């Protein structure tokens, strides 16, 4: 079936004209129409525009043009601005917002001829770990619709797992790609901070946000990352480093690679989950890698650090949503203060408000030093821990999440427990490092993720390791029941 083919296989068929992009696009549109109502993975389906884009891709293919993503259908997380298409960011605040421009990620994929099928559901303003904070309702995990798919890119992950597109995009501020990738059994890559432009990606926490990819394989992720990565003059924090040929490096041998097992990630980890990680390590050893235990003493401080830094930045980033120029505006404001208070009070959901309030508090006079400044210091210590670790090893390995997908509703009223879901993923964001989650087995019939973290700009090495692992294992080939065919 077309939806089970890799991006590489599809590109080959499109190139040989054995398959047209319109056929492929129709196939996915049909799947979305049939399967999405149970999953709620998409906020917006743009079937007509997708078919038009597919027809345009077919014309390019007919003229002899070809490219790794030309004619390949994808779904964007609804955090990326898409010209002429509603960009809601999962919020009532932007329910009526039609972006007047394309995000750089969107523009690059468009230029490569990839076909956007629609926009994926997400936690409101990317704040959440379960996709339950979306104004558009929770996304269901295709492996078990009583479970969450993770968040904040839960729609992108669920759509990928349910094979509603050949690949999907996401963003990762504290684990929002890796955690849902793990909980839905797909491969998710969060690149180095600055590797992919943030322009047009609605900001949550600017110093942590990074765009990335969900795919079924590391090889597909490598193909997509090569297209979206690279310096963007519109984003001052994007880095002017050449983009390596990720697909070309996928098969490099792992012999001599030194892999560090993160000691802190195993404290309190469920034995069945820990066993999966140890099994994975054996795979890497058999591929020629050497493993050793590594400690990052400040890593346990990453959750509290993150929950100061991220809300601080979000409290400021979300000030522009004031009901004045775009987005939600309350009915009949009495005066300016009323306009602000009711537009924001009615437009934002509870988790967003909680973070705005937390962020406002930690930046306030009298608290700034104790919270924000202290958090920045700890952030530097964590970064330094990683730097020291990468003097000894090429990459770090550990679980992506402490547990498999949990029940919808189980943690939504307990923010602190919810925040602990990101305990293994946040460190990479604080240090700006690339991270990758790939399926490594099942617990209670639910997929678990193996996380790889590397030094800055080591995406190629991470994808290489993941690809070699996927060549040696078959965890990534499993599809949730009902979504294989």
């Amino acid at each position, binding site marked *: 079936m077309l939806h089970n083919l890799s991006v590489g296989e599809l590109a080959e068929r499109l190139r040989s004209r054995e398959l047209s992009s319109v056929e492929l696009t129709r196939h996915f549109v049909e799947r979305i129409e049939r399967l999405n109502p149970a999953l709620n993975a998409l906020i917006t389906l743009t079937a007509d525009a997708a078919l038009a884009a597919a027809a345009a891709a077919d014309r390019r293919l007919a003229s002899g043009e070809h490219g790794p993503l030309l004619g390949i259908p994808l779904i964007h997380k609804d955090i990326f601005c898409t010209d002429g298409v509603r960009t809601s*960011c999962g919020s009532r605040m932007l329910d009526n*917002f039609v972006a007047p421009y394309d995000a750089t990620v969107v523009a690059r994929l468009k230029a490569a001829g990839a076909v956007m099928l629609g926009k994926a559901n997400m936690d409101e303003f990317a704040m959440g770990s379960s996709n339950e904070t979306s104004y558009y309702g929770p996304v269901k995990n295709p492996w078990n619709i009583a479970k969450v798919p993770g968040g904040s890119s839960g729609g992108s992950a669920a759509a990928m797992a349910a094979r509603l597109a050949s690949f999907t995009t996401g963003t990762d501020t504290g684990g929002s790609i890796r955690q849902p990738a793990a909980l839905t059994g797909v491969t998710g890559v969060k690149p180095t901070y600055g590797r992919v432009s943030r322009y047009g990606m*609605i900001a949550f926490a600017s110093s942590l946000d990074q765009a990335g990819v969900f795919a079924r394989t590391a090889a597909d992720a490598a193909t997509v990352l090569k297209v979206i990565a690279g310096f963007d003059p519109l984003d001052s*924090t994007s880095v002017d480093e050449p983009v390596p040929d990720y697909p070309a490096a996928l098969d490099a041998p792992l012999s001599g690679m030194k892999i560090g097992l993160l000691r802190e990630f195993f404290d309190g980890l469920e034995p069945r989950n820990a066993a999966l990680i140890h099994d994975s390590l054996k795979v890497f050893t058999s591929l020629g890698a050497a493993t050793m235990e590594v400690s990052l003493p400040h890593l346990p401080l990453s959750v509290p650090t993150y929950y100061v830094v991220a809300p601080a930045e979000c409290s400021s980033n979300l000030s522009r949503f004031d009901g004045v120029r775009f987005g939600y505006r309350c009915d009949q404001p009495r005066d300016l203060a009323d306009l602000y208070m009711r537009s924001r009070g009615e437009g934002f959901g509870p988790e967003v408000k909680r973070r705005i309030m937390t962020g*406002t508090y930690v930046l306030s006079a009298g608290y700034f030093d104790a919270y924000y400044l202290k958090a920045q210091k700890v952030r530097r210590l964590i970064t330094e821990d990683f730097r020291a670790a990468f003097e000894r090893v090429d990459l770090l390995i550990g679980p992506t999440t402490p547990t498999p997908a949990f029940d919808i509703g189980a943690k939504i009223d307990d923010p602190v427990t919810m925040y602990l879901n990101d305990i293994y993923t946040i460190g990479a964001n604080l240090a700006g490092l690339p991270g990758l989650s790939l399926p490594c087995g099942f617990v209670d019939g639910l997929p678990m993720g193996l996380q790889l973290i590397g030094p800055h700009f080591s995406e190629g090495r991470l994808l290489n390791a993941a690809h070699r692992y996927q060549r040696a294992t078959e965890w990534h080939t499993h599809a949730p029941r009902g979504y294989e065919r």
Partner: protein
Amino acid sequence: MIDWEVVIGLEIHAQLATRSKIFSGAATAYGAPPNTQASLVDLAYPGVLPVLNAEAVRMAVKFGLAIGATIARRSIFARKNYFYPDLPKGYQISQYEHPVVSRGSLKVLLDDGTVKTIGVTRAHLEEDAGKSLHEGLANASGIDLNRAGTPLLEIVSEPDMRSAKEAVAYMKKIHTLVRYLEICDGNMQEGSFRCDANVSVRPRGQEKFGTRAEIKNLNSFRFVEKAIQYEVARQVELIESGGRVVQETRLYDSDKDETRPMRSKEEANDYRYFPDPDLLPVEIDAGFIATVRATLPELPDEKAARFARDLGLSLYDAGVLSASRELGAYFEAVLTGLGKAHAKLAANWVMGELSSALNRDGVEITASRVSPAALGGLLARIVDETISGKIAKEVFEAMWAEGQGADDIIEKRGLKQITDSGAIEGVIDAVIAANPKQLADYRAGKDKLFQFFVGQVQKATKGKANPAQLNELLKTKLGGPA
């Protein structure tokens, strides 16, 4: 009676003369229809990001070098958070703890001829806000975001000024400087150059500063002076009648000539500054500083010193002629033809006749109807005694009105000075003959009548008689009072 000492510090906002905004590519031109010069970045659309305009940094560094300040090798943009409709992002991007320029100073010439050094604490880059429009809209306010994102250099002085006049002298000096450096057009009507004044009073001799009030948004030198004078009087009166000055922001009402407490833009004053994560720290290396330094023009103080030293001008004249780059250039161009020996003559004419004509007709010196070469030509005729200074004024007016050269006008109007002694003697003889009574009175001791005879002769010659010769000959002919 307590002797009150006034303490003033100014925060000057100079709009930098970049073509595009500080963080977006939108134009900065003044006067465009509302919101036509606001890009998605200026409108703070979701997802957009600021990109620093390097030209604004270059201009700030240029200013820093001109006041002998420290240029930060690493400066940081911070967000100043508050809600207001003309502030689209809900925060202003400014510099807080690490400004690009710090610890400079400049010298100000005071009325009594003394020179005072005023410290500049810092100068930092920031973006301007938009404008709220309340007129012509029923039950609503409009917002024009054309100005949002316009680059500003906020220049913060030390509390070094001790009178409204000193404050004005300092502000004028900065105004001169930013125009010299071509980093600000200095247009105060359009708001390109404005200031906030921090004013307090204390009993003379007391070390501790009094509580200050900040007067916002003063956009003319006159308003600065009057607002400070009013504020000082208000504070003194308040304290002397048993009250206390409260630290607050006030607005100056020029119609009523008074300051009033301003309703604060935001309820609380906690701006929650933190480094802007969308912008990298600004790294400035020695090479960049050297490049900018190489573009520095001769600065006003240097030019004035040179005028005084090389041309023998008074400090006052040298100061006036170096007050703008254009004026200095005009003056020097006059000297090119005329020669440095006649600098004082040229200075008098540029500051006198030329300046009044420019002021009268509202013409910029760069558009003067009498070119520096033409003025030099006119002054050369005074020097070579073709015409007298008095006739020269008449010629200048004609040059101004008709655009012709001095020689043409002198020729056409027959204004050439009479230096032929015989001719002057003839006129003197006729005048003496026609005025026997005055002659008698003069000789009887009414020596003031000498001027009467000078006047009569000049009247007869239409002012063309060489004054020195005329005096000489007339003395001989009248034979002095008996």
